[in-house]
């Protein structure tokens, strides 16, 4: 009962900090937090594949970038397109991309799955680079209008204001993470863990493994698309090097690994660690990727369970130690 109360207090404190944050730290760090939240969602969608279903995707940027491009292009060409539909277009485009690629992808696993996703990701990269009349090629799509958040007759909030966009992005990302979290807690969410641990057994139990994989793939892709849409609105610019480059596929993998793929909230920790690292490293050198790459290697070698795994093991050790001591004291 007491621990539940502590948890509520903790959540309330986090909420208060998040509400006050832009008014305390200024625009720059407000944007950093928005970027962190978007990457958190992106990393969580990847972890849905990697951590929960055991599918390592090397081409997740296909959905993130697809969503970002769809939102940017829609806002460029559809005058007066409202904000929420613009975000949903990003998500839906990613869902369509997942639907198109899943018939091939769900029939393979392991290295073949990784390579195929890599191929699809790169295909999208080249397509966007070459169709410059639509995608702007190397230049990308930028300077598109950012619509206000409008409830007709009630309110219209300017989304070019960084503080307003901060709240909007946080709500969209928060709701998306909440939906994914609920999804993992459903019976279907347990089946996908079964697919990861023993697909054959799940199949013997009567569940269709390819269909299950396809559904996870679509959900994961869809929310990655929403993350991409939010990213497009934040940057007001979408380019192949920004959203579809191979690094953007590896980034959520690094976040998930560093944070811990065994935990739902691990990727959020990973995103936070990489964001903070990025800010710190940039103060001293331009070689950010060199340092983050080194950190990634160290985590894989020495802390394979990631940050949340490390915390859990420390907690376990302390807890066992203190309970052991308690038993010894009682015995004496």
């Amino acid at each position, binding site marked *: 009962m007491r621990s539940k109360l502590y948890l509520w207090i903790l959540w309330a404190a986090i909420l208060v900090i998040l509400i006050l944050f832009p008014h305390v730290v*200024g*625009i*720059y760090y407000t*944007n950093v937090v928005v970027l962190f939240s978007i990457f958190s969602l992106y990393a969580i969608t990847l972890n849905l594949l990697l951590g929960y279903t055991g599918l390592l995707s090397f081409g997740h940027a296909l959905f993130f970038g697809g969503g970002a491009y769809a939102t940017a292009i829609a806002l460029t060409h559809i005058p007066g397109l409202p904000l929420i539909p613009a975000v949903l277009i990003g998500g839906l485009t990613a869902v369509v991309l997942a639907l198109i690629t899943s018939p091939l992808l769900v029939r393979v696993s392991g290295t073949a799955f990784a390579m195929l996703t890599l191929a699809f990701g790169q295909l999208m990269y080249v397509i966007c*680079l070459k169709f*410059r009349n639509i995608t702007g*090629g*190397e*230049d*990308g799509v*930028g*300077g598109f209008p950012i619509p206000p958040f409008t409830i007709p007759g009630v309110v219209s909030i300017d989304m*070019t204001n960084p503080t307003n966009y901060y709240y909007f992005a946080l709500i969209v990302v928060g709701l998306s993470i909440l939906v994914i979290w609920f999804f993992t807690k459903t019976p279907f969410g347990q089946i996908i863990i079964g697919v990861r641990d023993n697909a054959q057994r799940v199949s013997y139990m009567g569940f269709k493994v390819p269909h299950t994989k396809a559904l996870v793939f679509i959900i994961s892709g869809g929310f990655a698309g929403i993350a991409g849409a939010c990213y497009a609105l934040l*940057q*007001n*610019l979408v*380019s192949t*090097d*920004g*959203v579809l*480059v191979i690094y953007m596929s590896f980034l959520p993998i690094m976040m998930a690994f560093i944070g811990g793929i065994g935990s739902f909230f691990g990727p959020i920790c990973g995103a936070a660690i990489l964001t903070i690292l990025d800010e710190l490293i*940039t103060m001293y050198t*331009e*070689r950010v990727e060199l340092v983050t790459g080194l950190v990634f290697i160290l985590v894989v070698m020495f802390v394979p369970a990631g940050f949340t795994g490390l915390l859990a093991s420390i907690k376990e050790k302390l807890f066992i130690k203190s309970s052991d001591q308690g038993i010894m004291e009682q015995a004496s």
Partner: protein
Amino acid sequence: MKSAKKILLLTIIFSFLCLLSLPQAMAGRAAFDVHKMSDMSDFDPNNPDIYTGKDAIRIGLLQIFSGAGAGNGEIFWLTCNWIAHDINKRGGILVDGKKKKVVFIKGDTKGKPADCKKAAERLILKDKCQFLWGTSGSHLTNIISQVAKKYKVIHQNSLACSDYLMDAKNFSRYTFQTFTRNSIFGQGGAYYYAKRNKEKKFYILCQDYSFGHSLADEFKIGLKKYFPEAQIVGEDYHPLFAKDFAPYVTKIKASGAEVIFSGDWLPDGGNLLKTCRDMGVDLPILNIFVDEPNALHAVGVEKTKGLVNMNHYMADLRTPERQKFFKVWDNLWRTKWKKPYNTWLYKVCGGTIAECVYSTYWLMSVIERAGSTDPEKIIKVWEGDEYEHPFGVWKMRADDHTNVRDLFISEYVPPEEQKASMTIPPYYWFKGISSIGKIITIPSKYCTPTLDPALKGRASK
């Protein structure tokens, strides 16, 4: 008597008005004065003396400092710190009643749009820069321009050429384009070949992004205007920082072209030249940035002969001012600078390097005359401003903030013929390569940057 009084009164009023306008007439146009330049003998680009105090004029230098195009960042880190060193040794610039030092702060664009935006915002919001400077790549410059507009910060477009950056759609009153525009290169290059009237078959090979496409379009417009009998025998666009030029060169070979037209900048320009020559294609390349001496040294005198370079800056050394600047720079290069600043690239302050030096001095002059870093005051001074430098006069067209200027073209010649422009001993610019020979100036009236009709008269409104 009455009329005599009237005449006297009119004479007094007239004399008074003349006296009022005298200081303005005496001031003339702003100019770079090499004789006022500080003693630069202690300038070390490897360890620049960067002012660390808080009360400074802070300029965000946006460039590629990592990855394939990092050489670009290296160049402009030197040029900008040269200016800061000189100005700071003079005591700084008087703004808001106080002399303030100048400091350039690095922002790494990595040559990528997303990183560029992040770096620009970081410079404004975190490092509190009052000005943005840069950058290589029109697509990146457009982003910087939009960021500068959003946060109301002056942006000097010192390195991007695309005309669309200053059209009605993208125009920002906070951005000033000091760099040469594609329409100048396109028209100037076409005018040069029209007057030459020898080669008529052109092959266009440019980088596959806005700058490359825009430059090619402007060249085609120029040919139509000045050289209608010319023929485009092929047109190709390669990715930025391409790894392999062989497929493009093969197509050029088969096309029957007499001239290759390319806007490729570092490192693409050098790689294109090397591949051409390695594959036996000795055609002249009408270029802007294939003037990088290290890349030219890799192919030698014979294979660089006949390159036709269009440039923002080309000048012989006939005036004492030009000679003085040349000697100060050359002496430091020979005696003091260490790697990478002791390579051929930095031997002569010419081409884009010189362009950036003088255009940054122009910015300094504008700040000085505005007496403030307030964007509105800067805009007021810079719009319609004229600035004199060792090789001519620049004019900032008020309507679209574009630098109206002459263009220089030269056919590269072996060292023994370089005395046409290198007029002091040893009478050659470089011994191991062909370089600038006779300099042809294309006056701005033949290569006026295109003004978007929608912007015409904007400044006077």
